[in-house]
């Protein structure tokens, strides 16, 4: 092994050792990047990375939407917008066999549009939808599987915090990533609903049909859901029509969610403390990871690994698609240990140059990458969304939840295959919007 490659291997071994020793992932990346870069280029220049990189990350205007989206999600949760979304979708399709599960997927998609985080979507919808599904005789496996899988839509439906981080690290326009995600997100919802329909066809007793709601009652629910419509409409509509920039759309979302929470009298001492703690903790956690990743990227770049890997893969006599599939398999394996953001920030410095070197588009890769790492949220052994659902109802064993996820995992794999084989599904809309 040549010097730089050996150095990279040692650097990654050190990074993984620190991570497995309970060192926070952002700190582990920062420290191993500092040591690695220090050995290669001297510790004086390496030390300056602790000034230049945090300064660049903290003052980055594109990343500043992260705390705004987090604040918007917290405000939307305390103001009960998630209940409204769920009630609205249920009123329309709840009477189908499996309709409650389909409504949950719709609710997750709607909440994902105002939240941007997968576990937050799973936790919020889990508290609303799980008791209802169990009360109506749904099998616990299908009920929890639906919510855990539906929760992943929070990450895939724009605005998504993971997409903002990807855009920053890949140096792409975040609006392009958001637009590119629209069709894949729609496909995700359709395939998840199809998975429920097929499941219910095979095991009808797993999801009894709910009662049909009268049209007058439906009209009342639609009238009462105006807040949701305004919120999603103002953020998504403003963003995609080109009226607002991403930062402006996030600010509008915060303002609408704040006004909604205020008029609903949802803002009290307890809820405000919750909002402050959630926004502060999650923002800080993400920024520490990004700062650590920026320092680590310096080290990886200094080893010249990305160039060497691109050259190696380019010289290989195998179709690029095979390499992409191998990389996706690596992410599925990584998803067994790491959460989504960690998987992405640790690997992006050397994977992205390889992918773009093979002739693929960085925007397309962002969508594929997010879809594959979100699988880790619902697959064993960690499966964060599964753990959240288990936390909401401890009487449902984790193994049962994982079993309930199987149809949705199959649907997700089909979706990933479709987007990999037909990149135009992700890349067509950004060309129209430009």
């Amino acid at each position: 092994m040549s010097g730089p490659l050996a150095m990279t291997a040692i650097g990654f071994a050190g990074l993984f050792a620190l991570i497995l020793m309970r060192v926070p992932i952002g700190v582990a990346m920062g420290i191993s990047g500092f040591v690695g870069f220090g050995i290669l280029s001297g510790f004086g220049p390496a030390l300056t990375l602790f000034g230049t990189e945090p300064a660049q990350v903290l003052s980055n205007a594109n990343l500043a939407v992260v705390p705004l989206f987090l604040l918007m999600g917290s405000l939307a949760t305390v103001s009960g917008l998630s209940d409204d979304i769920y009630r609205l979708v249920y009123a329309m399709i709840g009477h189908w066999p499996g309709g409650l599960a389909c409504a949950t997927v719709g609710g997750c998609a709607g909440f994902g549009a105002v939240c941007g985080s997968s576990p937050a979507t799973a936790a919020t919808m889990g508290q609303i939808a799980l008791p209802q599904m169990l009360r109506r005789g749904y099998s616990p496996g299908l009920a929890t599987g639906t919510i855990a899988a539906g929760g992943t839509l929070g990450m895939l439906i724009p605005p998504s915090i993971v997409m903002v981080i990807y855009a920053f690290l890949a140096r792409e326009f975040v609006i392009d990533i958001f637009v590119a995600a629209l069709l894949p997100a729609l496909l995700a919802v359709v395939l998840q609903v199809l998975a429920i329909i097929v499941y219910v066809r095979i095991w009808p007793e797993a999801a009894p049909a709910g009662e049909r709601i009268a049209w007058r009652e439906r009209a009342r629910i639609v009238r009462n859901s105006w807040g949701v419509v305004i919120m999603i409409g103002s953020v998504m509509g403003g963003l995609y029509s080109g009226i607002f920039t991403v930062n402006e759309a996030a600010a509008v979302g915060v303002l609408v969610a704040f006004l909604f929470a205020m008029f609903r009298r949802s803002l009290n001492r307890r809820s405000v403390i919750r909002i402050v703690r959630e926004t502060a903790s999650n923002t800080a956690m993400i920024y520490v990871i990004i700062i650590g990743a920026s320092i680590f990227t310096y080290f990886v770049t200094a080893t010249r690994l990305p160039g060497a890997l691109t050259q190696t893969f380019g010289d290989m006599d195998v179709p690029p698609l095979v390499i992409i599939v191998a990389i996706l398999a690596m992410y599925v394996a990584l998803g067994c240990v790491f959460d989504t953001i960690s998987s992405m920030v640790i690997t992006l410095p050397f994977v992205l140059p390889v992918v773009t070197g093979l002739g693929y588009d960085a925007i397309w890769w962002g969508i594929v990458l997010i879809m594959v790492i979100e699988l880790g949220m619902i697959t064993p052994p960690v499966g964060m969304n599964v753990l959240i659902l288990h936390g909401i109802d401890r009487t449902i064993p984790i193994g049962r939840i994982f079993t309930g996820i199987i149809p949705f995992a199959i649907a997700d794999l089909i979706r990933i295959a479709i987007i990999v084989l037909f990149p135009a599904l992700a890349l067509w809309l950004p060309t129209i919007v430009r």
Partner: protein
Amino acid sequence: MSRITAALAAIGVCALMAITLITVGDAILRTYFTSPVVGVSEVAELLALIAIASFLPLSLEARHHLSIDFLAEAFGRHSYRWLGVFGALLTLVFFSMMVWQLLRHSLDLLSSGASTWFLAWPVGPWWLATTAILFLCIPVQILVVRALLTEKGAEHSGATASEDLL
């Protein structure tokens, strides 16, 4: 210390609300009255700086990190606890180096008289304020290390320590 970190986090959220108001105001004026407010993005960037820095001490105090816990659990409660102390010490080193280098960065900006493009606001004082807030992370993390050293038994553990909702 909890009150100080909580108050700082609240200030951070207020800064975010201020960013929200000026950004929405600018968007409305630009869209409907074709008279955008000059320099809004510059003010928003400076406020975001303060907001994000204000969130970090609370996050450290609450030990709200993304970390992998479940493998360390296999080594037993005693090792699990000491690995936690090790992680907290490295976090202290990380933040100490960051504050040190950001102080140098801030002083450089101050002495060079760097300013924003449109409004010509000096950015040095903003960076100095940001560094001062971040400096609080050091005593907070020292208290975290001390608490971990004095804690009886293993601290909270789980399949993964990815906290809360993200």
